[in-house]
């Protein structure tokens, strides 16, 4: 049965030591993580952050928005082709305004979806967690597939100076 264990620290340095200790003890990258109540400078805990693909989302959204808005603006004018003042049916500049707005709207919505997806949310299973993290404590959390290495993880966390260790 998989277990989740969290070591709580009051300072950043011992938490970073715990992360190093888990790495050195042979725990797989990605199986342990650090939880904080505020963003720390990248790499402050020697943490492993996988490559993200957030930048693809707005581009993808914008392409969809552009295509749909082109269809919408062109099709609604062509559906009732009333010539006004001898001008072309398709009013390009007016179309561009609506297309611009809908392209941006679609880009924003896709970005928000991307942020949520790349943050791996929604995440209904919280695993090991402690509310003091949002008060400034730092949690080093490790997810294990079974209990075989739980003692090793606990030792590393204790050695680094964890104030408290909890399992879930």
């Amino acid at each position, binding site marked *: 049965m998989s277990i989740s264990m969290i070591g709580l620290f009051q300072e950043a340095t011992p938490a970073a030591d715990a992360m190093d200790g888990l790495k050195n003890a042979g725990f797989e990258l990605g199986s342990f*993580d*650090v*939880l*904080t*109540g*505020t*963003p*720390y*400078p*990248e790499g402050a*805990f020697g*943490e492993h*952050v*996988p490559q*993200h693909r*957030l*930048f693809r989302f*707005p581009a993808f959204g914008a392409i969809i928005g552009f295509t749909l808005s082109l269809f*919408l*603006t062109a099709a*609604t*004018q062509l*559906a*009732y082709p009333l010539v006004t003042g001898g001008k072309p049916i398709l*009013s390009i500049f*007016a*179309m561009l*305004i*609506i297309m*611009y*707005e*809908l392209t*941006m*709207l679609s*880009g*924003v*919505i896709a*970005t*928000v979806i*991307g*942020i*949520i997806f*790349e*943050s*791996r*949310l*929604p*995440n*209904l*299973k*919280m695993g090991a*967690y402690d*509310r003091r*993290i*949002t*008060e*400034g404590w730092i949690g080093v*959390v490790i997810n294990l597939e079974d209990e075989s290495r739980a003692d090793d993880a606990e030792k590393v966390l204790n050695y680094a100076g964890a104030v408290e260790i909890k399992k879930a």
Partner: protein
Amino acid sequence: MQQKRNLTQEYTNKVLLNGTLETPKWWAPTVAGLGFVVLIGVIIIATMVNRGLGLTGLSRPVYWGLFITTFVFWVGISHAGIMISAILRLTQAEWRRPVTRAAELLTVCSLFTALVFPLIHAGRPWRIAYWILPYDISRGIYPNIRSPLIMDPVAISTYLTGSTLFLYIALLPDLGVLRDRTTGWKNAFYTLLALGWKGNPRQWQMQTIGGILLSALMLPIFVSVHSIVSWDFAVASAVEGWHSTIFAPYFVIGAVHSGVSAVVTMMALMRWMWKWDDFIRPEHFDALARLLIVVATGWLACTFLELTFALYGQDAPEIALREMQIFQWPWNLLFIIFFVTGYLIPVPIWCVKKYRNNIAIMFWTSILVNVGMWLERFLIIVPGLARRTPFVFTWEAYRPSPVEWAIMIWSFAWVSLLMLLFSRFFPLVPLFEQKESQVFTDDIQIGRAKVPAIVREVE
């Protein structure tokens, strides 16, 4: 610019959640008072929809009056959020931290309110659907996308949707804090909204990159929205005073002027009402005032250019309109008030550092700006229609009716009520931004000196 403050995360949570986890004594009576005004306003709106626009002072030739003025005013105020939040986020300005959430919220609430005005102004709001929805009505006619009256709702809906999502994404870490500090139904509510936020590096990375990305996407939308609002007027070639090529940038910079001033008003109220003296400090007002000096002067240049463009052509009707707008009673009085309150009083005051750091002075000058900016919109919209022209066969002097004034007052009460209700459930100052600034101000060793990680100008 900012001085270092040592505030623990626990203290930050306790103080900034004092309006969310506890109910301030003034909150219920204020909400009740505003709720009463809003209720009266809703009854008046319902009566007007039922009885018709005859209850307003709108009559030939002035069909756009107080409602459209107030609509443009609220769209202008909405520009505060993205201007402050997105630009300062993109430029990594440290002093943005306590300002961003309130500014974004002001955007959402004022846009939501602005949308009401064209609806009720139409007289029969349900017919708006025929204009804007791409729906094939009985005669096979779709909305005319060549009209700014179609572009306008598209732009405003885009801006409202984007701003609301922007606000929500930046709320996620604070929703996690609230989830950890509540029980019962409130806990269930915040757990649902927080989506399982834990605060791991991946999530923080997405907050940072996502915030910058959304800011970059929202900025062009922000510029387009008020440009399109200005085209509601600028494409009306038959109306002098409206048909101007400078309207788009003029409206945008005017919107930023009034919007940033509204943020100053709001910041002062937040500091006084929730006693957030440790977080909203004079240095923030100082920074906003410096920004406002630049914006206001840019806006003044656009006002000058708008008049110059109008007069340069030597077009007799245009000159007649400007004469009326500036020299004829009662427009001349309104013009003087607009100019004095919009620029002449506040900007020289903001040039003095002592006054920029005085929160009461900043509060009152920011209110003055918005009095001036409301009048500016009124002076753009109404005189152009009210002037006697050869093709108008009846003239009525436009006098806004009590119904119009009451609905305008309703809009102010409604925005205030929405914001107070938001404050009861969500923090108005982003907690994680404040905490991050504490982490970044930790001392680092450079040679033999210990300095804050973010070096700032100290008094």
